[in-house]
């Protein structure tokens, strides 16, 4: 089981983090490192694309929450792209749908950035 992380710059000073694979207690540090590095570099508007993520657990959610908290301190935001029903369900159960912007496609997520 692994996670692939790809970071790319998007128009409008935003960055997209493409994730592919499974985010759990073993792989989430890799995701955390990528997000932390972006924020440390001063990038506070992020789209995290979970479109190819098959599985996420509480440690993965913790990484996303941690990233959101940090960018909000700088007036930024994190929007998510998510179409997997099982993953959407986890965001629903935990109430995270209320604090993240969750979109079906990257274009919508980008447009909705602050």
């Amino acid at each position, binding site marked *: *089981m692994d996670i692939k992380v790809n970071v790319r710059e998007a128009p409008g000073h935003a960055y997209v983090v493409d994730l592919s694979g*499974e985010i*759990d*207690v*073993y792989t989430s540090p890799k995701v955390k490192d990528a997000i932390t590095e972006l924020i440390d570099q001063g990038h506070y508007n992020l789209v995290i694309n979970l479109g190819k993520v098959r*599985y996420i*657990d*509480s*440690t993965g*959610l*913790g990484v996303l*929450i*941690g990233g959101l908290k940090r960018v909000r301190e700088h007036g930024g935001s994190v929007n998510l792209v998510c179409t997997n*029903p*099982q993953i959407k*369900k*986890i965001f629903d*159960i*935990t109430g995270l749908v209320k604090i993240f912007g969750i979109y079906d496609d990257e274009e919508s997520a980008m447009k909705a950035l602050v």
Partner: protein
Amino acid sequence: MNALEMREGTAGVVELRIPRRAEWVAVARLAVAAVANRLNFSIEEIEDVKLAVAEACTNCILQRNVADQIEIVCETKDDGITVRVRSFAGPAATIEAPAELESEQQQIGALGIFLIRSLMDNVNYEHGKGRGTDLVMTKKVTN
């Protein structure tokens, strides 16, 4: 396959023991998903069991205690599955003073337990400072 054969096929106990390390959690969740797949669970319900077991294993790992192994015992019946996830110190465990959890780990642990309680029908969870954790959870087949 008649009804009796189906009952004989679904009832059973499967035990798995893994090192209490993050890289082994995927093995546990996939094994339990395979066990749950033998019952009449929907795909969504199997995913629920899989996540709940992974969260229980993750909780074992996040806790600061002397345990170095995680035992997962699945008991299947016609109407559902009961999974016990327990961490404990094996003979080779290093005995050291438990440290307090960091705030971020506590939050993740709480989120994990919340998820387990949301996804499973019945959950009993015990952990003692410095000892291992013990969580028993049940999911009933709905269809």
